Structures are given as structure tokens and as C-alpha cells.
């Protein structure tokens, strides 16, 4: 069984068909890319997957469970975490607290126990604190733990967002343009890290990206969208040779 299955997914905004009969699947521990020109509907797919938009039709199943009509926080708890195209970190919180917010489900103490500082408040907080610091090591960000997130340089803010998504223990990670605004060296590092995340956390990754070198190198399979329609799918080699894709990107 596939980890994620999307069937005949459509969404209409007013008269605009932002997505038409889209279908895709993602398997466990796979890295899949979703590409297409600007406005093709890539982020719309993410928003439908995470419950931000409600689809006009179609089905989304994650581990056999339907995601339609589920709220974003429920979908996150089921096992899908995402990052955003325009970074949405919690700017006035520390780097560590950003990650701890996503680790909410790792702690069980009640409001009253927290407010009165019961012993298990301390033990659970300590455990999560250690875990959050360990997460920072993935991107060598231990030094920034106590910094206010807004003060981080752009590249680190993107990395923090990925870490925050990982901290919520997903089985599928959605990355929306993780390399946007990064220089070639950083992009190359990011490629390695994406693979490393997949191997270390044993999760599937679905990513939207414009940087073709990154997409072609990292992804095992690709889906290409244009004007809300799926125009091609296959391995990077197949996509590279696909006439429709070349037309969509370069014009005829």
C-alpha cells in the first residue's frame, strides 16, 4: 500500500480551476518532486494536503485514512508536516521554543500541572529540551538555540522551519521551495541534508522546487504541473526528455 494516495483531486476558486483531476502517490521513504512553472498549482496541492483548503472533489488517503474534512492540526498529528514558501517561523520566539511548539504532542502534562509546576512538568520539559537541542545538531545550529528566530539569517530561518516540521514526528514531510533564496553552495548542502533526513528519520519527502539541479539530483520520481493539470510524471530522466514539460517551461 502507498503511504499517500491522491485521486482525481480538484479545487475551484471562483471560476478558476486551480487544480484539475490531479493524482499522485508517495511511497514510504521516497523522495518525490512536484515541479511546474509559477502559478501551476503546486502550493495548492500542499494546501489541500494539509487541510488549509477544502477540495472541490477527489480523494486524499494517507495510510488508508481519508484526509478530507480534517483540520490542519489533525492532519499534522496523523503524520504530515510542512514548510511554507514564504517562511512562517514564530519570529519572536527563540529557536529552541520554535521547535518545542512542534513537540507539543511529546508532552502530556495538563494545564494545571504546568501552572503549578508539578514534578512531571520538569521531567517532561527536560526531556523535550534535550530532544530539541539534538534536532538543532542536524543543521549545526546548536549555537543559535537561545537566539530570537527573527534574528537568524535567511538560510537558517529556512532550516529552522524544516527542523520545526521534523520535530512534529511526521511520516511524510512536505517542503515548499526549501532552496529558495539559497546560494549554490547552500543548495548543494541542502541536497545532502534532504537525503540524510530521509535516511535518519525514515520518512517520505515530497518537495516543490524551482532549482532544477536539486530536483533532478535528489528526487526519485517527479510530477509536473502546468495550469492545474498534471502534464507528466516519471523519473528525472524521463521528465528531462518529455516534450510537454519542455514546452511548458520554455514555450513552443
Amino acid at each position, binding site marked *: 500500500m502507498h503511504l499517500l494516495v491522491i485521486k482525481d483531486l480538484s479545487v475551484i476558486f471562483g471560476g478558476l480551476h486551480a487544480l484539475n483531476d490531479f493524482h499522485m502517490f508517495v511511497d514510504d521513504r521516497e523522495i518525490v518532486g512536484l515541479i511546474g512553472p509559477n502559478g501551476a498549482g503546486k502550493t495548492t496541492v500542499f494546501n489541500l494536503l494539509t487541510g488549509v483548503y477544502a477540495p472541490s472533489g477527489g480523494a486524499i488517503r494517507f495510510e488508508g485514512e481519508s484526509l478530507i474534512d480534517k483540520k490542519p492540526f489533525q492532519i499534522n498529528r496523523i503524520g504530515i508536516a510542512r514548510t511554507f514558501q514564504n517562511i512562517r517561523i514564530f519570529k519572536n520566539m527563540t529557536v529552541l*521554543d520554535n521547535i518545542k511548539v512542534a513537540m507539543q504532542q511529546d508532552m502530556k502534562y495538563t494545564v494545571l500541572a504546568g501552572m503549578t509546576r508539578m514534578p512531571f512538568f520538569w521531567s517532561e520539559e527536560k526531556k523535550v529540551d534535550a530532544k530539541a537541542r539534538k534536532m538543532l545538531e542536524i543543521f549545526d545550529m546548536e549555537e543559535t538555540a537561545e537566539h530570537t528566530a527573527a534574528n537568524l539569517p535567511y538560510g537558517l530561518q529556512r532550516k529552522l522551519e524544516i527542523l520545526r516540521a521534523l520535530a512534529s514526528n511526521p511520516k511524510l514531510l512536505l517542503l515548499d521551495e526549501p532552496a529558495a533564496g539559497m546560494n549554490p553552495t547552500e543548495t548543494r548542502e541542502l541536497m545532502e541534508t534532504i537525503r540524510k533526513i530521509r535516511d535518519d528519520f525514515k520518512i517520505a519527502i515530497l518537495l516543490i522546487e524551482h532549482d532544477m539541479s536539486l530536483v533532478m539530483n535528489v528526487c526519485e520520481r517527479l510530477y509536473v504541473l502546468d495550469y492545474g493539470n498534471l502534464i507528466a510524471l516519471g523519473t528525472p530522466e524521463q521528465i528531462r526528455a518529455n516534450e510537454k514539460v519542455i514546452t511548458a517551461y520554455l514555450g513552443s
Partner: protein
Amino acid sequence: MNILKKKTGVYYLINAVLVAALFLVLIIVINTGTLNGYYTDILTFALINIVLAVSLNLVTGILGQLVLGHAGFMLVGAYAAALFTKNSELSLTVAFPIGLVLSGLFAAICGVVIGLPALRLRGDYLAIITLGFGEIIRVIANNLKITNGAMGLRGIDSLSNRNNPGAMFTYAFFIAVVVIFLMFTFVRSRHGRAVISIREDEIAAESMGINTTYYKMFAFVLAAFIAGIAGGVYAHHVGVIDPAKFDFNRSVEILIMVVLGGMGSITGSVISASVLTILPELLRDFSQYRMLIYSVILICLMLFKPSGLLGRYEISVPGLLHALIKKIKNKKSGEV
């Protein structure tokens, strides 16, 4: 703001000792008559305002939702407590605490009723709905028989009397201390982090598994509960309440305390609530210019420090001590 690294136990101890010392000093001055009744009253009002400002700060500063009808919750609490103690057979020392719990509960119920529709949505709906609530509840109190209409309730017994002038002050003081303590611990727990993350970015918070509706409701209802208790203390402190005391101006007054102290800073709210209660009283000698000076101070502060006195920072005596010790140590190691 890392709570785990610092010597938290020592900090708690220092704060507890300081609070106890402050209380002892104040209660001794009050009971010996060094501080006369007038000043004791002002001090108690300041404490009630601190409780109100801190509770509003939870919603407006920490959760990031504007509330324009906080006085409405105070009204509900004031009437609930006053009606209970006036009609109960119990002695006041027993009836008063029960009345306070009731006032909190009634205000919290109002919070649930108006929060449920408003907080499921994203955006500023809460501001408008609470504005409406504040007005509606005042009109209701103006027209009901049980609240005695615009005449209001009179002869609400105060715990303070000639033999024990500091009784109301003691209540207000400990309620303020407990509320401040619980706010601090709340903000620095997983629930507090969830609430702050909603202020920072609601969409991101929700996609990180935070049930935003639940946490918004929780913070809002908790603030209503605390405001209700403050209303209950207020009613028994002044002895006479009428709906006009809890109008829109009162809500704005509390909001100003929060904005001035710094949205999201609990200590900021404490400082500005104290200053804004005591300052107008000190300016009574210049009664002609009183409101003028008051507004000039407000305008200047907003001009030169738009984020409020403390912004989002908190100050603490142990924290200051810590910084001082560090500085001295650095100096010493520098000399060697």
C-alpha cells in the same frame, strides 16, 4: 527565556521571600495606621487593576487577540459576587471567597458563550464581539430587577473594618500574586508556547499540530475568569456598584495599561497598572491639569517607546541580581 538552565529553585525562593517581605511591610504600615485609609484604598485599587491588566494581557498581548470589553467580565463578576454575599446567610468571611469563585465562574461562562463563535474564525472578530458584549451586558444590568437597574447595588459589605483595615488589601494582594505567578508559569509551559505560537503565526501553529481554537478559547476564558474575580473584589472594596462603572471607558482604561506596559510583558502590565492607578491620585493637587498631564505622559510614551514600557521583556529581581553578579565577576576576571 530558557527556564531549565537557570537555577529556577533559587529564583522562586528569592521571589517568594521578596513578595512576603513586601506584604509584611505594607500590612504593618496599614495596620498601624501609618498609611491612612485613603492610601490603602488606592493601593487596593492598584492591585485590582494589576489583576485586570495581567488577565487582559494574556489575551491581547500573549494570544494576540484584541478585546474591547474586558469591563463586561468585571461587571459580571462584580454583580455575581455582590448578589451572592448580600443574599447568603453565611458570614462574610466564608461567603466572600465563595462569591469570588462564583464571580469567576459566571464571567468564564460569558467568555465561553462569546468566545465560541468569535474564536473559531481567524482575524479581529473578537474585538468587535467583545465590544458588543461589554455594551450589551451593561444594558442588561441596567434593566434587570435583580441588579436593581441603574441604581445599582448598595451596601455591599467590605471585609475591612476599623479593627482590620487591611483585610481587603490582603485579599487583593494575594489574588494578584497568585494570578501573576500562574501567568508566568502558564506562559513558560507547553500550553503557553502554543498560545504564543498562535500570536506569531496562526496558520503555521495549526499546521504544527496546535489546536488553535482550543488554545484561543482557553486563554480567553481564563482571562474572563480572572477578570470576573477582580470584579468581585472590586465590588466588595467599593461597596457600591452600578452598571455605569463598567462602561466602555473602563475597558479602554485596562487596555491602555496593557499597551503602555508592553503587550506580552506581564511585569510591564504590573508596573503600568500601578503607575496609572496611583498617578492620577498624586496629580489631584493639580486637578485642573490632571487629565492633561496624564494624556501628555501617554502620548510621549507612545511616541518614544511604541512597544510599551517593557516591550515583550520581563524584569525580575533575581534576574537583575544575576546580571549584576555576572558583571562583577567579569570585572574581577578582567583585573586578574
